[in-house]
Each structure stands twice: as C-alpha cells, then as structure tokens.
C-alpha cells in the first residue's frame, strides 16, 4: 500500500513537472533555429496542401448587397505619413501614376483616370483579418491579370510585388503574391469600394484585393507593381512587411 501511494505520487509529480517543463519549453523551442525550421514545415505543408486540393481558379464566395457589413472598419495604416502622399491626396490623385515594372517587356506608368478607363470587375467579398474578424464589402477595380498581360511578363517572373505609400516607422509597407493568385480572376487593383471612390482610410488610390488570402495581403496605397524572380533581397526578403517584421506567414490562405 505504501509503495502504491508512492508510485501514485511519483506519477502525479512527473505529470506536474512535465507540464511545467513544456510551458517554459515551448517559447524556447520556438526561438531556436531547429524549432523555427520544424514549425516552418507546417506553413510549407499548408501551402502545398491547399494548392494541391484547390482548383487554381476556384472563386472566393461572392455575396449579395444584403450581406454587406453595415460598417467596414479600417485597420493597419489609415493615413500614409509622407508629404508626397498628402499632396497627391489633396489633388485627388490627379497627377499620381502607378508604375508597372520589373521583369516585364513593356513597363508602364498609368494615371488613375487611365486605370478607371480600363475594364473593371466589381465583387462583394469577405475580408478576413488574421486577427479573426471578418467584414463583407464591395470592391471595384482593374483585374491584375489584365494589367500584367499588357505589361508582358517575362518568362522568369515568379512573384508580383506591391510597393505601398504607407510605412510602419522606417519600414515601407509592401506585399507579394505568386502568379497563381496574380492571374486569378478576382485579384483586382481596387479603386472603388461600396459604390464610392476608395477612401484614404481603406487605401486610396489603389488597393490590392487578393480574395483567397488574409487581410494583411490586401496591400493599401499601392504605388508600384513590380514583377520579380525571387523575393530574396527585397526589403527583409520574406515577401511582405508583416512577414519581415512580425513573422506572419507569407502564404496567408489559412
């Protein structure tokens, strides 16, 4: 009986000890390079699995006007700080130009009026924030694939990078997507939202909508679209502001 109690106590204390070790251990595992590599495997597995089981042209759900959020909240940067941007905003972006360059045969520079004059797509879609909230809104803009066809992507282009006017401290905002998403029919450079001109709070004059990914991929204040072969060497090298500075996953389909 004495032995039995001792064993019980032993098992109990082993359990408590293991729990304590794991608690403090988890943060140590995550900060080690091996731990990072192991946890990073999860992201690669998710990206591959989702690309494997989903049709590359599968459309994000589109909603009716009755499903729209009464208030579509803003988040992230809501007012770029640069004097250059402020001047463009004051001028209703009349002298503003979108640059399309990088690995393209036909680099372009387009005014907002020219972009609005090109074919447009309007879609009511759900915006999913990485934090967990969702909002449904209507977006109108130029299909990105159409723009890239006009710019004539070179064969070595693999990613499309969006350079933005807003910054967090010294870090400019930017984002990047693969060509599957770049040529997806719902991927647009939106200049209209909920039937109105895109507001500064939501990313005027142009905001990327890449509907099958989370909110931080939906770059606001897009100034330049660049085709690249690799994301290495651009800013922090991980393909986006949040990816470089906070460790959010580059593939934000989950």
């Amino acid at each position, binding site marked *: 009986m004495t032995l039995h109690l001792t064993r019980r106590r032993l098992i*109990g204390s082993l359990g408590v000890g293991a729990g304590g070790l794991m608690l403090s251990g988890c943060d140590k595992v995550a900060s080690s390079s091996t731990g990072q590599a192991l*946890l990073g495997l*999860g992201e690669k597995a998710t990206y591959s699995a989702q690309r494997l089981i989903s049709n590359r042209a599968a459309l994000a*759900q589109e909603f009716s006007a009755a*499903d729209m959020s009464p208030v579509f909240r803003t988040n992230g940067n809501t007012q770029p700080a640069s004097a250059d941007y402020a001047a463009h905003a004051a001028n209703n972006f009349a002298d503003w130009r979108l640059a399309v360059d990088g690995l393209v045969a036909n680099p372009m520079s387009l005014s907002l009026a020219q972009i609005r004059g090109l074919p447009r797509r309007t879609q009511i879609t759900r915006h999913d924030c990485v*934090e967990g909230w969702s909002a449904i809104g209507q977006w109108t803009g130029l299909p990105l694939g159409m723009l890239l066809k006009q710019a004539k992507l070179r064969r070595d282009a693999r990613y499309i990078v969006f350079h933005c006017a807003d910054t967090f401290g010294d870090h400019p905002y930017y984002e990047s997507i693969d060509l599957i998403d770049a040529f997806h029919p719902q991927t647009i450079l939106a200049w209209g939202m909920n039937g109105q001109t895109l507001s500064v709070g939501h990313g005027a004059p142009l905001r990327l909508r890449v509907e099958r*990914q989370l909110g931080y991929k939906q770059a606001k204040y897009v100034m330049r679209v660049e085709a690249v072969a690799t994301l290495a060497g651009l800013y922090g090298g991980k393909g986006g502001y949040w990816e470089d500075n906070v*460790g959010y*996953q580059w593939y934000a*389909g989950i």
Partner: protein
Amino acid sequence: MMANDAPSEAPPPARGGDIVYRHRIATRVWHWINALSLFVMLMSGLMIFNAHPHLYWGKYGANFDHSWLDITPGHLRVGPLHIPTPGLLGVTPHGGRFVAFPPWATIPAHYNLAGARQWHFAFAWLLVVPGLLYWAWGFASRHFQRDLAPRAAELKPSHLLHDIGQHVRLRFPTGEAARRYNILQKIAYLSVLFVLLPGVVLTGLTMSPAMDAAWPWLPALFGGRPSARSIHFLCAMGFVLFIAVHLLMVVLAGPFNEVRSMLTGRYRLPREKGE
C-alpha cells in the same frame, strides 16, 4: 488481430484484481500523440483568440457588429451574462500588453499572434493526420463498432440515470463489468471522436479563406466564417471540459493503474469493496 488481443471477444469471466489487456497499441499511441497535440492546439488557440477576443454569429463580424462573447479587462460577457474575472481573464501582464487569456494558458506566453499561428498550424497536422488514421483503424478493426457503439439497453433513460447516479457517488464498475466501457464513457469518447474532432477540424478549415474558395460548402455548413470561429471556440471548450473530467476520473479510478493501461495496455480490474 489475435483473439486474445480483442478486449470484448467472449472473454473468460474475469474477477476484480485480474490483469486484462485493455488498450491496443493504436489506441495507446494515438492517446499520447493527442495529449501533446491537443495541449499545444488549445494553448496556441487561446493566444490566437487573444488577437480579437470577441465572437460573432453570421457571415460577417467585426468591432462594430453585435458579438455574443467579449473578454474585456477583468470582464467576460456571454450574451446577456456579465461575469467579473479579475486576475483570471482580461489581464495585462507586467510589462506586456492586454490579453484575454493569461500567459499561463497560452503558447507563446506573451502576446504573439504570428508565433501562435505557427504552433497552431504545425500541430494541426499532428492532430489531423493521426486522427484520420485512427478513424480508419477504429472502423477497420471494428473497435468502434464493438467497444464504443452503445447497445440499445444502455441508452434507456433508466440505465443512463443509474450510471450517472453511480458516477456521482463515485461508485465505478468493478470486476467483469469494468472490462467494457460503461455508457457514460462511450458517450464521452464518441463525442470526442465524432463531434468535437470533426467539428474543430472543419470549423478550423472554414476560417481559411483559401479553403472557403476551394470548398464553398464549408462556410455554408456553419453559416459563415464568424459562426465557424464561434463553433471552433465552443469545440475547444468542449475539449477542455472533456480533459478536465477525464483527468478527474483517472485520479479517482486510480492513476497508477490507469496510466499503466495507457502505456502498456495492461489494466487491473478494480475489486469490489471487501473483495
């Protein structure tokens, strides 16, 4: 599978004190994988929740919309219910930022959404892949049909009430009766296998915008991403409840014998009082 490997196949009458082979290797391995993966999934999930400690029903849900659950500093609201939770929920750790669930309950310990998502999505594979394999094994080996499927007599209200009464009085089955799962165990394990696990995985997938595009039946099934997020949270709380009762039962039923049975498969049948 050998005949003596199967717990409920015409056993010779057993008595309290006998050692019987109770858990097969697939069950034991899966149990300990889950002990690890659920632990990480729950704690990293609570940190992900911390990024937006509000829950909604419907197709959209953000700060200006009507929520059914909020955690604010020292305060939990569930529908019309206001519950003060000072020091427990809605705390600001020394030198950290406000969190709904406190550092002892989350992975990573301090606010880190990106880190929590890495843990959550890496360990999700450890929950889902072995889970699917165990499902396949459970049906193929007939473990589910033979050992977990309730018999009609067990589901009679009188039987259920009797078993609940016995459990409340902490009188657990002994001898031959302890060889088989009782109806409350069956209901608990079936709920985990066929309600909580599929529920938590499917609602988890529904929060992925790429999965919603690939499988539009997912958001349709749960009534929208915010609803799926709410059900995901409720399933997680279901796991917490299951684990709490499970651990309590292990302690009450004799932790040495119970843990040994989950390590070696061998279980000593409890004796009657005075046997």
